[in-house]
């Protein structure tokens, strides 16, 4: 993974032809900005290990420092090729910053670069573990009943109270998920540090993916309850 990728000279300078490691942005020989042809991933681009816990202040410092190196404002008088390279690198930097800044986006991105299938937004409920599935069905049923009650003219306070009650177990689950997520982040980071075997790391990523699926499902449910509350 990242350690191997880093040692290979994967980029080549379009200007002087010199080779360059994948995690540098300027040609080691002629010092011109490199075209963004081959690049590693967002982590490598930022010079960060492929870990899930990120020091946000450090990320921002790196972001500002890289912005100062690439921004198109500073390449106005350069050659056309360098201007394009600057635009591409600055875009990639901004996109990377946006993703790495948010823990969930960061985790989903890690799954992607590690070759796991994406976390669907409207995925099949059958993929969820049985306990979650039951809760989901129960809440959906309750939401339907509440909707019917509201339309039948049941007073708003009663509707609100039912919604509150229905929401509580889901919120508790969401809180548990946050804690699980945190634990998985730490497990992954430790495995990276210890260079754990690929199958062990893969198992962690599978758990992470399952949890993210669940989380997105639960988040949708909470949003649905909120909408219903707004209606009531």
């Amino acid at each position, binding site marked *: 993974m990242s350690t191997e990728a880093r040692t290979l000279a994967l980029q080549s300078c379009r200007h002087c032809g010199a080779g360059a490691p994948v995690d540098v942005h300027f040609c080691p020989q002629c010092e011109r900005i490199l075209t963004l042809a081959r690049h590693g991933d967002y982590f490598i681009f930022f010079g960060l290990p492929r870990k899930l816990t990120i020091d946000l202040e450090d990320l921002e410092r790196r972001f*500002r420092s890289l912005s100062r190196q690439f*921004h*198109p404002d*500073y390449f106005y*008088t350069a050659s056309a090729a360098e201007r394009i390279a600057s635009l591409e690198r600055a*875009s990639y930097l901004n*996109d990377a910053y946006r993703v790495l800044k948010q823990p969930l986006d960061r985790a989903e991105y890690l799954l992607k670069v590690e070759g796991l299938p994406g976390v669907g937004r409207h995925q099949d409920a059958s993929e969820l573990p049985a306990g979650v599935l039951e809760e989901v069905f129960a809440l959906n049923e309750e939401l339907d009943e509440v909707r019917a009650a509201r339309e039948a003219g049941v007073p708003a306070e009663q509707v609100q109270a039912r919604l509150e009650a229905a929401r509580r177990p889901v919120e508790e689950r969401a809180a548990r998920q946050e804690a699980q997520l945190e634990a998985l982040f730490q497990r992954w980071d430790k495995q990276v540090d210890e260079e754990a075997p690929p199958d062990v790391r893969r198992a962690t990523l599978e758990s992470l993916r399952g949890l993210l699926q669940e989380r997105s499902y639960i988040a949708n449910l909470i949003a649905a309850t909120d909408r219903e509350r707004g209606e009531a």
Partner: protein
Amino acid sequence: MSKVVGIDLGTTNSLVAFVGREGPFVIRDGSGDALLPSVVSVDAGDVVYVGREAQRRLLTDPNRSVYSVKRFMGRGAGDVAAEAGHFPFALGGSGSGVVRIGLGGREFTPPEISAFILRELKRRAEAYFAGQGEFDPEVDRAVITVPAYFNDAQRTATRDAGRIAGLEVLRIINEPTAASLAYGLDRRRTGVIAVYDFGGGTFDISILRVEDGVFQVLSTNGDTHLGGDDIDRLLVGMVVSEAGLGEAADAARLQAIRQAVIQAKWDLSERDETEIVVADPGPAAPGGWLFRRRLGRDEFERLVRPVVDRTLGPCRLALADAGLEASAIDEVVLVGGSTRIPLVRRLVQEMFGRPPHDDLNPDEVVALGAAIQAHIMVSGSRDMLLLDVTPLSLGIETMGGAMSKIILRNSTIPASGTEMFTTFVDNQTAVDIHVLQGERELVADNRSLARFKLRGIPPMPAGLPRIQVRFQIDANGILSVSARELRTSVEQTIEVKPSYGLTDEEVERMLLESFEHAETDVEARFLIEARNEAETVLRATEKSLRNPDLEAAKADLAPGELAAIESALADLRSSMGSPDRAVIEAKTKALNDVTLHLAEVMMNRGVRAALTGRSVDGV
């Protein structure tokens, strides 16, 4: 070397600034004016006037004079139909096409009208550099500012205007961000700033973090159709109804009323009460008053409060998008002429819980920032860097008329996004893509930016091609699109049909046509300068006569002195239309001379009033 300037192309006024050895400064015209009124007028002989002369022609030739053209930049004819009634000039164009503005026998697009303003600023700057004995006074490149909340079409229209005016537009930057650059020069280097920019026609709020000289915009929000114009319109409506004008409110009278209420609005930023005085421009009562009325600040504030309140919603949204509470804002900066209104200042202070900064002139700060940005780009200086965001989400139309977002609002630019497409029938070689900008779920509620046709897809069974479309928003906030089929690596041809813009060919043609336009000759320009000078003296005198302190000052004036002033004033006003420059100059001098003593009296009273507030020891 040719010069690179910063331009604030405003709804009401435009300015040009430059960074010299001593830092940034605004370039003034021959009579010392920094502001160029954003008004363009074309006379019967096809001669084009820009600025104060065009502003005067709003009264004499309202149907051939355009103001607030910025409101129409990048918009479709259908969009502005509802507003057309508010303007004396003809707004047209076919349904979905770009707006056309009729002036006399010709039609102009908003970028062409704006180009007249830009060319005048270019000329002003070149005259200044020539006067400084510069070896190469030519101005061929500029940074131009736009409201942060301008969409892609409005930004593109602004860039087109620059090209039509013969300027290479180095960068389009956002007005609030430009203002923060100007403020950042000598301020503390770390903190969170809110820039509240309330101009003639647009409102913007931007929240920035400044650290190590990097000005990073966290969020922006605004309303591209909210500004001082809306306040003026309320006041005009009040006068028209109180004067019982109705049908009699022809274009020239409406302009006279508009100018009078603007004057009253300005007065009320300095004092508690003023008088709206409308001189009748019509032939029926030459020199007579059409309308007079006292207006107190309280009444004014009650009237305009709803307009000012509309700025607060975007402020809250910007804070929410930045993930900050109002208390997290370290500094608040005011930009735009409408922030001179005391009510605006009060509400901003309440909103952010701290007094706003106003040490720089709110009219000039944006142009200064644009000049600084121009300097950054050509000088190689890396002291400062602006990192701006795209104000609106960018997306495409998906099945069922929904919008699928590809680049979210408040993403730092440049930014990019990719989307995969495929085909629905066998051997399909083209795919239609509709690009949108906005935050709503449905296509119909968002802004249509362009329709693209991807052509040249290699014939394959349905669903097999994998066409990757890449959307790139550059540092100007302007979109470009490229596409390739991944299986064959074939680059696709993209035909761009901007929904409300000009094609490259149209811009080229307009650039050529602009050279054919009659320019005002040297003698005409001298005449215009004489009128500008006369107007400055007229305005200053009228302002003194409306000053509530005048009553008390009468004791210090000689008998008949006021009558002499009134007569010289009327004399000059009636000769403003004269084609003889010498007559205007003579009468300007006469009015100036006869008011010297009054000016002295008023100034002494002002000084005495200021001093009486202090202890004797302190004086």
